[in-house]
């Protein structure tokens, strides 16, 4: 087997330290058949051409490139091989520049080291297999789970490219949390107004026909892999035909049944047939099956009698299961707030007038339970409000991370209280203040300059306690200087830690996408690839990945779309790189050691053949299973035991 060694001088970078003549002599002693050639700058156009020409003229079968880091130019020289008609995997690159010439003082030692590395590469490359890339057909359509800011943005950008999007939303309403907020930090934009164009585009815009919106639906099963997933989606009955209903709301008033409205954090009532809140989209009410007299077998048909359109209310609606083929999945299921009853000293759930930030958002909303009026349970405007920041955040006993958005909405609250109820005293209790970004300082400075606002910094939330009594609600505190005090507050607003949505665990299991210690969906890489999960083809957007604000969530929705738009293209096949793991089914004993070690869930167990099976699309060639397989039945292509041992043997010779 004729092996060619191409030695790049890289100008003086390599040639100054490593003696090519000595390397050549040593190689010819190892194998007189070796073809050795030096090139001045191999990555230059002339250099590449010279190598390609030399490969063809000398009928070289295996190639060693002695040059720089493979991270710089491995693919460059693989292309040179392909151009010369050689399989590009029949090449081994030796990094004699960064790893030897640049870091070795003595040129004799540098030459000796390079000699060993190159001889090892010669031994290794002779064992290389001519690996072939595989290609598979793909489906360019996308499943987006969650119709909040991140999911909507992703759905629209993908639909805009002409692809089909299946948009699955758990609740009857789209827009996520911010659509329920009257105003948004940092610029006090109206939440519903800001989102309205986005929601409108999804429902009726230019590309709306590319989006199949399934509300009150959940993804219950996913099989397949990147490029070819099949998802099962279960939808609860709405009992209202969204196509027929005109959203006039005539049906609501006649309904005789009421219950707490969960969309307003249970602070007011809604009917068995209702809209979550005024202006909710899609513009069609939904029926709560458990409340509705008709659906519970009773005689009531009052809503249908009031409905001016034929066939809008359908009492015999039933649960449906949809099966959809898609090539990629974007998870954008959002987040929840930490349960404040886990900090019992704050009195949440026990005392009146203690609200979470979500409840307070709804109190301030003009379509909320109090029509936007800030009132205590006694019906009065509060004279004083305490806002407790960092409830459960930055706290090893609760959630160790900073939730990132609380400071900003707390100062938004400060601003709105000041505007709606001038003269109201506001006291901020905080552990840390976090207000990064170019626009975010405004509300902070405003709160700081508000003469009615005071600030108390605490070390540990255990040093705060909220008690009720004849005098009203009193907050006892010890601040971070050790000073104790108390503040009277007619209303207390808690800013709880942002936590993963309740359903994330179940969805994570369905998708086999891992979750981090806090329960957020785990990204492939925190900085490089935070919009990708570790499962190829499953992307992440918004607060299901980490607490974040609307700006970041929208951006991450776009980022996830970008991966899909560039990686999955209609008509183009998905290339599967051949440096992956391969199971020899005849030698696999079925011990199942490998299945759990794969970080990409690429290995499954075939219960009939009783052998492990590697999914080529998911496998990233990391080699974890190859090392773990106790019977050497898994081969790591391009990193076989024989190749690695030959290399080690020669280096140590």
């Amino acid at each position, binding site marked *: 087997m004729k092996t060619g060694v191409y030695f790049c001088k890289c100008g003086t970078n390599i040639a100054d330290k490593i003696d090519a003549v000595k390397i050549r002599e040593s190689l010819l002693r190892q194998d007189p058949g070796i073809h050795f050639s030096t090139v001045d700058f191999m990555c230059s156009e002339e250099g590449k051409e010279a190598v390609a020409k030399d490969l063809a003229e000398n009928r070289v079968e295996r190639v060693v490139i002695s040059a720089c880091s493979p991270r710089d130019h491995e693919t460059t020289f693989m292309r040179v091989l392909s151009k010369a008609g050689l399989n590009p995997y029949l090449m081994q690159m030796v990094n004699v520049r960064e790893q030897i010439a640049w870091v070795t003082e003595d040129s004799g030692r540098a030459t000796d080291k390079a000699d060993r590395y190159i001889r090892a590469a010669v031994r290794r490359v002779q064992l290389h297999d001519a690996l072939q890339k595989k290609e598979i057909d793909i489906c360019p359509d996308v499943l987006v789970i969650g119709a909040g800011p991140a999911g909507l943005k992703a759905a629209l950008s993908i639909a805009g490219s002409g692809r089909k999007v299946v948009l699955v939303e758990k609740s009857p309403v789209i827009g996520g949390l911010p659509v329920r907020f009257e105003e948004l930090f940092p610029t006090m934009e109206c939440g519903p107004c800001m989102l309205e164009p986005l929601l409108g585009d999804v429902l009726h815009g230019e590309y709306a026909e590319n989006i199949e919106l399934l509300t009150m639906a959940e993804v219950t099963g996913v099989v397949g892999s990147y490029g070819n997933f099949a998802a099962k989606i279960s939808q609860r009955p709405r009992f209202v035909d969204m196509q027929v209903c005109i959203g006039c709301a005539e049906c609501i008033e006649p309904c005789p049944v009421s219950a707490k409205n969960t969309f307003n954090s249970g602070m007011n009532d809604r009917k068995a047939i209702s809209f979550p809140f005024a202006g909710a989209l899609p513009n069609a009410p939904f029926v709560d099956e458990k409340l509705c007299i008709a659906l519970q077998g009773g005689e009531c048909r009052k809503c249908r009698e009031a409905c001016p359109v034929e066939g809008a209310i359908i009492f015999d609606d039933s649960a449906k299961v949809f099966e959809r083929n898609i090539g990629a999945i974007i998870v954008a299921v959002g987040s929840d707030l930490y349960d404040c009853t886990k900090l019992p000293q704050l009195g949440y759930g026990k005392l009146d007038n203690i609200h979470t930030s979500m409840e307070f958002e709804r109190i301030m909303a003009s379509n909320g339970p109090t029509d936007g009026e800030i009132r205590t349970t006694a019906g009065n405007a509060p004279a004083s409000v305490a806002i407790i920041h960092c409830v459960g955040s930055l706290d090893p006993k609760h959630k160790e991370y900073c939730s990132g958005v609380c400071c900003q909405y707390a100062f938004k609250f400060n601003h709105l209280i000041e505007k709606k109820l001038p003269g109201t005293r506001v006291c901020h209790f905080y552990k840390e203040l976090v207000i990064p970004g170019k626009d975010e300082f405004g509300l902070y400075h405003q709160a700081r300059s508000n003469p009615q606002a005071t600030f108390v910094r605490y070390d540990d939330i255990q040093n705060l306690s909220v008690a009720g009594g004849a005098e009203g609600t009193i907050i006892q505190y010890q601040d971070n200087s050790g000073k104790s005090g108390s503040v009277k507050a007619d209303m207390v607003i808690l800013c709880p830690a942002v936590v993963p949505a309740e359903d994330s665990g179940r969805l994570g299991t369905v998708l086999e996408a891992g979750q981090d210690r806090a329960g957020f969906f785990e990204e492939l890489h925190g900085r490089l690839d935070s919009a990708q999960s570790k499962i190829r083809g499953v992307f992440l957007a918004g607060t299901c990945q980490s607490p974040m604000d609307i700006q970041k969530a929208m951006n991450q929705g776009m980022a996830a779309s970008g991966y899909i738009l560039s990686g999955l293209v209609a008509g183009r096949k998905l290339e599967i790189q051949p440096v992956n793991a391969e199971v020899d089914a*005849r*030698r696999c*004993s079925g011990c199942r050691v490998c299945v759990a*070690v794969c970080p990409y869930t690429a290995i499954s167990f075939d219960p009939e053949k009783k052998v492990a099976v590697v999914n080529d699309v998911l496998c990233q060639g990391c080699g974890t299973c190859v090392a773990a*397989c*106790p*019977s*050497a039945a898994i081969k790591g292509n391009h990193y076989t035991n024989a190749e690695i*041992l030959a290399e080690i043997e020669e280096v140590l010779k």
Partner: protein
Amino acid sequence: MADKPKLSMYWAAACGGCEIALVNLNEKILDVDAAFDFMFCPCLLDTKKKDIEALPDGAIAITLFNGAIRTAENEEMACLLRKKSQTLIAFGSCSAEGCIPGLANFHTRDDLMKAVYLDNATIDNPGNIIPRPETEVAEGTLQLPAFYDRVRTLAQVTDVDFFIPGCPPEPHQIWNVVSAVIAGAPLPPKGGVLGAGRSAVCEECDRKKEDKKIAKLFRTYELVPGKEACLLEQGLICMGIATRDGCGALCPKVNMPCTGCYGPPEGVLDQGAKMVAALGSIIDIGDTKGLAEEEIFRRIDAVFGSIPDYAGMFYKYSLPGSILKGRIS
């Protein structure tokens, strides 16, 4: 009798179990006798070394060589039988991989001599005499075969045609090989393994296997294992995952974890290292994200700390045949 092919069996550093395994062919031993001229076996027959020396080279059809190479005599006989045999088979774990005698490679020859002849509660050796290759006495020079510093496998001293693993090889597998040879069936390429499978013991074990995560290890006396589930999943270190099949999974069938006597599966260079790599991959130490390195080490130790003798556990049969071959001084 002279027309039948000659069969010989020799023991070097061995316990004699391999000969017992051969005799455990029971009445089939008569078939062996019918097919072969069983002419040399110091354990069973009275043929002498000089009788072998007198044979022309290649006169013996098959030699089953059991035992590891511990002394100069072991090596001399190995080379002699190589020369006189057409086919030399490393028979049993000792000659194939070194086995129990090979565990001595964790110590030097001097340490061993000291432990056996000097620092030993049952020895009375007032002259502190240690055996030596040559000892001068009034009558002349007494000679003993030299005791090597290291135990080696048969293949490390001479050219071996085939390997039959096992401590000892199972009689049904011995019969498989013998009957195949008698029938003239084609043998695998030189250097191959006979009388065993190509996979691991799990292949033959009927216990139910799941995806593995092991949070706690037990020693065999600490646990009465359930009859259905994989022993390793129950916390017993069963070497079956890293041991060649062929025995019929005898030990796991009777609730005992495999100790690895059939050696590494095909393609595995180092059985002990493979077992450690596999165990390291499946121990459950919880979520380690964000944990200090010391805490991760502590959790790993908490699982593996219960193993009293790593080397004896993972390299019980394979030390001289492994990559390191013994203690590195």
